[in-house]
């Protein structure tokens, strides 16, 4: 039977898979970029730029995944509408914007990065709205808890 607890477990598993993928990408980045550059004939000599994008972009991505895991752990513990989660969502949103910034700059040497920029910025915006909703929910819960 599917339950909320299993759903959180699946989400945590997915976050861990993404963490693994991120670490894998960082480790194999030199070979990955070399392969990509040799594959696309027009990007000769851009290995260092791709490497820079991957390594700089990995920082907000790792921080985002760390925050996501923290958020899921708190939700699993039944702590949903708390200020810490609002802060966590705020950090996740800023990580998305940071990733979008890195992708936007990278768009100058490889246009396809602009798709990543749009996707990350849009995701950041959605998370920011969710953060605002959770912040209101925290305020409502606080008021309800302190109504005697």
């Amino acid at each position, binding site marked *: 039977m599917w339950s909320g607890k299993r759903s959180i477990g699946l989400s945590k598993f997915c976050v861990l898979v993404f963490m693994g993928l991120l670490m894998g990408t960082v480790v194999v980045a030199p070979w990955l970029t070399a392969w990509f550059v040799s594959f696309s004939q027009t990007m000769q000599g851009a290995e260092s730029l791709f490497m820079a994008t991957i390594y700089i972009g990995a920082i907000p991505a790792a921080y985002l995944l760390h925050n996501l895991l923290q958020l899921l752990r708190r939700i699993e513990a039944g702590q949903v509408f708390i200020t810490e989660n609002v802060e966590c969502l705020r950090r996740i949103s800023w990580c998305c914007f940071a990733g979008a910034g890195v992708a936007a700059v990278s768009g100058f040497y490889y246009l396809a990065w602009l798709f990543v920029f749009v996707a990350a910025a849009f995701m950041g915006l959605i998370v920011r709205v969710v953060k605002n909703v959770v912040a209101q929910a925290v305020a409502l819960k*606080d*008021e309800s808890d*302190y*109504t*005697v």
Partner: protein
Amino acid sequence: MPIVVNLDVMMAKRKMSSGELAEKIGISQANLSILKTGKAKAIRFSTMEAICKALECQPGDILEYREEE
């Protein structure tokens, strides 16, 4: 908050303990403590009614408005 809860004063006047009042009005001691320490953000009419009945007083005896300095 400029609303001051004078529950302690009324309880002292009626010589009633927290446990006794909590039992009479049907709320937990923890909630009564929230009310007494001024941490409460709102009070239900039903709770106020029960307090007034238990302490034989008026809502004005429990709540007071004081201008913030």
